[in-house]
């Protein structure tokens, strides 16, 4: 029978992938769970000492974990909100008809094409307190009264990093929203025009509701991405308390402090936090994750 043969073939085709998935995700993840109940040095894994829930209890009282947690939430909230608003504005602009639209669409893709590490370095240079072009332009235009050390000032450093992330990730948001806009049939706007609805009314009553599915998907993607932020923060400020995210703290614990047990517990906590967000989103939007 064709179906039996098909099933056999399907299994055969999927098998190598499943094997790789078990090796690169399943097994390491199981190890992370396992070590989260032990006290062990990452350099001497051979002699772990079982400590039960001690790592998790410590995590609940750890002020560094709390700081990293709030930094991550602040980063995620501001980064995702700002890039959604900006991305929507840019998507609306490049969706409308004007001369040179193709060029503009190309131009807005550039930040997305730049590796995060490179964009972090570029902005670190631009934000330099003495020679940075932001300070030069800012003082010339009179926006800044004196040169500002954005990355050394504990009140400005997280906002500065958020601004860098917004710059880098807005194109992705804009692309997803543009795809959503293109799915909206244009004749409903003609009907609204005839009914005398203003552009502003059309945006709120037609565009936004019809764009919601694309918006939700984009929000999920970006939120999950922001919650695991590592590169931009680690490259720009390292393990600075004012900025370190959960992922940065996680790596610091594992590699700098060599603490395999506690580091693994933090990894599990990050996974749980992200899963909570996934479940909340899925509940909220209901089945967006389905592929069919």
């Amino acid at each position, binding site marked *: 029978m064709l*179906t039996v043969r098909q*099933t056999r073939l*399907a299994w055969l*085709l*999927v098998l*190598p992938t499943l094997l*790789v*998935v078990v*090796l*690169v*995700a399943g*097994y*390491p*993840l199981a190890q992370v769970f396992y*070590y989260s109940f032990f006290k062990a040095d*990452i350099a001497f*894994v051979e002699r772990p000492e079982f400590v039960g829930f001690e790592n998790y209890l410590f995590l609940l009282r750890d002020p560094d974990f709390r700081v990293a947690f709030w930094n991550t939430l602040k980063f995620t909230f501001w980064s995702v909100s700002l890039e959604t608003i900006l991305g929507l504005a840019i998507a609306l*602009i490049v969706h409308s008809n*004007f001369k*040179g639209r193709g060029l*503009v669409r*190309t*131009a807005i*893709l*550039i*930040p*997305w*094409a*730049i*590796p995060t*590490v*490179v964009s972090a*370095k*570029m*902005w670190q*240079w*631009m934000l330099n307190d003495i*020679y940075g072009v932001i300070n*030069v332009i800012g003082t010339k235009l009179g926006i800044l009264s004196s040169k500002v050390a954005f990355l050394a000032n504990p009140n400005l450093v997280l906002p500065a990093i958020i601004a860098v992330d917004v*710059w880098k990730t807005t194109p992705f948001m804009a*692309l*997803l929203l543009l*795809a*959503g806009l293109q799915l909206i049939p244009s004749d409903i706007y003609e009907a609204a025009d005839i009914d005398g609805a203003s552009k502003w009314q059309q945006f709120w009553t037609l565009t936004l509701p019809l764009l919601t599915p*694309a918006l939700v*998907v984009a929000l999920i993607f970006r939120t*999950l991405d922001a*919650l*695991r932020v590592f590169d931009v923060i*680690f*490259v720009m400020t390292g393990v600075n308390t004012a900025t370190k995210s959960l992922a940065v703290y*996680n*790596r610091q614990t594992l*590699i700098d402090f060599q603490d*395999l047990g506690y*580091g*693994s517990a933090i990894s599990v906590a990050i996974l749980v936090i*992200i899963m909570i967000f996934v479940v909340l989103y899925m509940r909220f939007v209901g089945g967006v*994750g389905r*592929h069919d």
Partner: protein
Amino acid sequence: MTKGPWLIVRRLLFYALVVFVVVYSVFPFYWAVISSFKPSDALFSSNPSFLPIPFTLSQYENVFSGAAFGRNLINSLIVAGFATLISLVLGVLSAYALGRLRFPPKNAVLYIVLAMTMFPQVSVLSGMFVLLRQLGLFNTYGGLIFSYLLFTLPFTIWVLTGYFRGLPRELEEAAYVDGATPMQTLLRVMLPLTGPGLVTTGLLAFIQAWNEYLFALTFTIGNEVKTVPVAIASFGGATPFEIPWGSIMAASVVVTVPLVIMVLVFQQRIVAGLTAGAVKG
């Protein structure tokens, strides 16, 4: 006729907005490029020029004069290239099964793949670290390629499944009628049709692997295996106070320009691929 001037003002405001968006998007990269062409004294000026004047290639000479950066580039090419290749081969096989064949746990497999794309890399950092050490893959190309499959493979499968699903049913049926086995159908009929999809998916997977930082930083020591993102992030001067911004910008431009060109050339397809992977997801 009061509408005429108002319309012009609105048009002008709109174009001002467009110009602002373009400047906002492009200026930082422009600044990196011109910084890489300036000699150090012009770089550290309180009144910097907005054009690469005076012009020099010495920053690029500095970057490539040490053996390390060239080595890092080759490392990145090898690691990202093989991770992409393996992902494409395994991805095509499973995406064909997931997109065209019927078998019981198909949705379960799709969910696993989707879950992996949402997975934070840092969550397996310690497990992967220990595993690579046990396998003797720490600080090797093999180790990096292996760990990169964590994100390149699920991405490839997810996007390619969409491509396969979109192909017309009749082609497959015609092949079956002609007596082709499913495997022959995949290789002779379906695979050629997914060519464009393979190029886009491969390109996106390659970009992800090329840009990866956390694993490369954690699973390598020394310059033998280190990839370019790690190299750029750790570029140091003679002293901690002397950051060689010119060299860093030159290295950044070298790493980024090929990507920017590829993205601009394949723009349409990449946008389609990204949105197919994301919006349909």
